């Protein structure tokens, strides 16, 4: 447990060194909520309170992109030959992967904490139970996303493949989910695809925790089940693939 704690601490410190990236992601979330969200909610005519719906989606979306950053770091470490150093540390592979996934989740949460707190204050959510549920939903999701990004970073050895998959993931996962718009208004093919997307359930569970109109949200029980499956699957895959790819220097 102490070793996992050390991995988490190291990853948190490394996040703090990337100040400009962090500030830019904040600025991006603020511009999305403060300009795009406000503007688009003026032209949306089919639902009330779309602005709040959208802002909640942007929060989850930004946390997703911070969590996926773990994969880029691991990829860069492989590229820079830093993996040899990590292998020399008295840690099991399992501790390393779990520690890094947990750190990915924690840093996403810490990173967005001021925006989440400000948003909850603005919409008047003060019930500790609801706040707690919302944070647990977000942490569970980002923990799973970190596992996914680690799985991809160690599973795809070609830089080109990694770039393409990450680019496509960024572009399609967000748009094929209910992060930006409810499933009710999606054309059938898009709605079907969004049902297989964990971002849909994370966004809707977050909204449900904050008391948003349930008419536009996925069933919360289904959302919890999907998120638990998601984070378990990708962390187990991450551990297995990481262990296999590290042996004998095959990550090179």
């Amino acid at each position, binding site marked *: 447990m102490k070793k996992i704690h050390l991995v988490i601490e190291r990853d948190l410190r490394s996040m703090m060194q990337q100040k400009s990236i962090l500030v*830019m992601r904040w600025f*991006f979330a603020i*511009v999305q909520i403060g300009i795009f969200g406000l503007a*688009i909610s003026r032209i949306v005519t089919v639902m009330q309170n779309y602005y709040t719906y959208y802002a909640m989606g942007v929060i989850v979306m930004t946390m997703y992109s911070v969590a996926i950053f773990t994969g880029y770091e691991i990829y860069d470490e492989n590229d820079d030959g830093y993996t040899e150093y990590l292998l020399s540390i008295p840690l099991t592979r399992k501790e390393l992967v779990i520690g890094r996934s947990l750190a990915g989740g924690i840093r996403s949460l810490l990173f967005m904490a001021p925006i989440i707190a400000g948003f909850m204050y603005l919409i008047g959510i003060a019930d500790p139970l609801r706040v707690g549920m919302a944070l647990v939903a977000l942490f569970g999701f980002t923990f799973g996303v970190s596992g996914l990004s680690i799985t991809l970073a160690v599973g795809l050895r070609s830089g080109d493949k990694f*770039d*393409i998959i990450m680019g*496509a993931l*960024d572009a399609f996962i967000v748009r094929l989910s209910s992060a930006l718009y409810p499933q009710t208004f999606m*054309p059938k093919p898009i709605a079907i695809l969004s049902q297989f997307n964990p971002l849909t359930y994370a966004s809707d569970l977050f909204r449900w925790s904050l008391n948003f109109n349930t008419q536009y949200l996925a069933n919360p029980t289904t959302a919890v089940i999907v998120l638990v499956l998601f984070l378990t699957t990708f962390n187990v895959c991450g551990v297995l693939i990481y262990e296999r790819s590290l042996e004998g220097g095959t990550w090179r």
Partner: protein
Amino acid sequence: MHAVVAVIEHDLRVFFKYRFTMAGLISMNLADLLIMAVVYTRMVSFNYFQFLAPGVTATGLFAAAFVIGREVNMETRRGYNQYLLSLPLRRYELVLGRMTAGGLRGMIYAIPLLVLAMFILKFPTLSQFGAMLFAMYLLSMGISGLAISLAVALRSFEKFTTARSLLYLLLIFCSTVFYPLAVLRQILPGSLILFAQLNPLSAVADLIRGYLIGAPPVTTQSWTELLSFSCVFILGGAGLYRIAIERSVK
């Protein structure tokens, strides 16, 4: 002239090395148009899909034309400028070649998006098509100039990428790419409205809309704004690059 062509050829070859970055960018643009715009069309009171198609062309052009800034910044940091200065080229040929190549790279990326917009909206006359290409090339050259100016002014890669992202957010979101100006007037303060009106991305997106759907109408003002922006940044970028490339090896 031969030297300028050689520089352009070199930069176009390098551009295709970024094909994987470009694939990510294309995914983003297509996802915006074919998924996000399709859903929003069912949620707003007008055809958002048709509205966004020209906007996506303008954002794609902007992103692709900006890539040259990343290269120039890297060259400045890594001392590659010494090699460039040792080539049997006049300074103005090098600068002209790079700016022209930057503009062409934006066009190579954005023309398929324009064709897609034409399929979605309508096919213009030949003169309208020519006018759209000219407007896009002006924007592309202006953006390349802006990117080169930033790349040489901010030598640190971190500062450059931060400035690039800030500019990207301001230029894309404070423009008429995603929403009409009337909507922005309801939410932004006066200074940002003025910025959105003068924003060259707004000018190009609205010019393409004007030629393909007739609204907003194409005005002399849009062309004047676009020409002014392009002239300032093409000349500014060229001047700064010329000074910086010499200073960088001293």
